């Protein structure tokens, strides 16, 4: 791959998916895009770049999907799901006792392991949620990934990553060499295609937003922009859950970390935030976003 081709692909991915590759990710591009190029009958990266420059729509979608699909497994990192069960849901159950409804958004739902893990957590709560309306919206950039999430069929390998064996026996049905999650859990989740760079106001507001391990791929301005838009989709007493390597600190004051609960954030009151003079390093970055 020539430096020109690499620069073109970097810019292309930034514009189309927000993916922000550093200058040394040639191997990542080659490992993801060479198989794709061969499948499309192209000789290599050079020809792939030519086709992209020619504006091949299908290829644009394929390239974005190939570069943004990431590893995921059930109950990934475990701790966020403990927080969900022991802290988030007990608070929501108290706060929504009259309304008896909860809306949850998995903003990078990928192949379904995260939304299904949440569905299993909710099922395990049993009677505490009887009569409640529970909505889980799982979104992802990739249509191919969404199809897999919808089907809920996983390989033997996939069901052994992070999923306790009791959960496998309880919530899955074996079909040949694969395992399919039960219809009851599949029915708890709505799958929708969504690019986080685009407007997502139409999804409505949520009590809980899981947005894990996706913002790490975005540059700082894009992150700030997404945080500020997420803040508008979250209930004032709702929860935002980020990945282990992600934080809002130093980027935005629309959310604040919950002490002692790593990865958990609460929205700040927008009026309070607006009334308070913006201090320190955050100010110029906020101004950049506001000017967009």
């Amino acid at each position, binding site marked *: 791959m020539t430096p020109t081709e690499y620069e073109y692909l970097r810019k292309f991915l930034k514009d189309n998916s927000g993916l922000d590759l550093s200058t040394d990710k040639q191997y990542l591009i080659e490992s993801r895009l060479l198989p794709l190029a061969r499948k499309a009958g192209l000789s290599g990266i050079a020809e792939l770049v030519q086709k992209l420059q020619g504006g091949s729509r299908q290829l644009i979608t394929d390239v974005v999907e190939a570069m943004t699909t990431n590893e995921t*497994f059930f109950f990934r*990192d*475990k*701790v966020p799901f403990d927080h969900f069960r022991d802290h988030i849901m007990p608070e929501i159950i108290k706060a929504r006792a009259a309304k008896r409804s909860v809306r949850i958004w998995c903003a990078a739902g990928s192949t379904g392991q995260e939304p299904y893990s949440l569905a299993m957590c909710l099922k395990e709560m049993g009677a505490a949620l009887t009569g409640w309306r529970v909505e889980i919206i799982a979104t992802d950039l990739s249509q191919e990934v969404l199809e897999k999430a919808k089907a809920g069929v996983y390989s*033997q*390998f996939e069901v*052994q*990553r*992070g999923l*306790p*064996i*009791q959960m*496998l*026996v309880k919530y899955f049905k*074996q079909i040949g*060499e694969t395992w399919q999650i039960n219809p009851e859990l599949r029915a708890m989740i709505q799958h929708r295609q969504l690019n986080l760079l685009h407007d997502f106001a139409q999804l409505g507001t949520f009590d809980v937003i899981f947005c894990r391990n996706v913002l790490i791929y975005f540059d700082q301005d894009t992150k700030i922009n997404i945080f500020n838009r997420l803040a508008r989709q979250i209930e004032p007493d709702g929860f935002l859950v980020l990945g282990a390597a992600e934080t809002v600190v130093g980027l935005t004051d629309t959310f604040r970390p919950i002490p002692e609960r790593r990865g958990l954030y609460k929205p700040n009151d927008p009026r309070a935030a607006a009334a308070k003079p913006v201090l320190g390093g955050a100010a110029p970055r906020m101004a950049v976003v506001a000017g967009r």
Partner: protein
Amino acid sequence: MKTCLVVDDSSVVRKIARRILEGLQFEVTEAEDGSKALEICQRQLPDAVLLDWNMPVMDGFEFMGHMRRLPGGDQPKVVFCTTENNVAHIAQALSGGANEYIMKPFDKDIIADKFAEVGLIPVGQAMV
């Protein structure tokens, strides 16, 4: 250092499992069938048992029954690791006292995940 007894009639599987478990800071002993494993357990119980099902002399399920009846035999975490991959076998293992269940083939990530699941290693270590 925690100890793990690897019980499998395949020396290749034992070797692979040993390498993975030593990487997870376990002191590993090996047995090629349930009967030999039981002799080891009668001398000293390990913290963990990685256990094949089908073996000559004494199979893994029978071994687990004997081991669980030893004084302190309820303590070791038993993780089955077998080609038996149907729900009936899994359910039988769990009701017989197994803590976790791995369907072969396995790799380091699966072993680390399952061992973290039953508290043998910290969760963070499984993520590395």
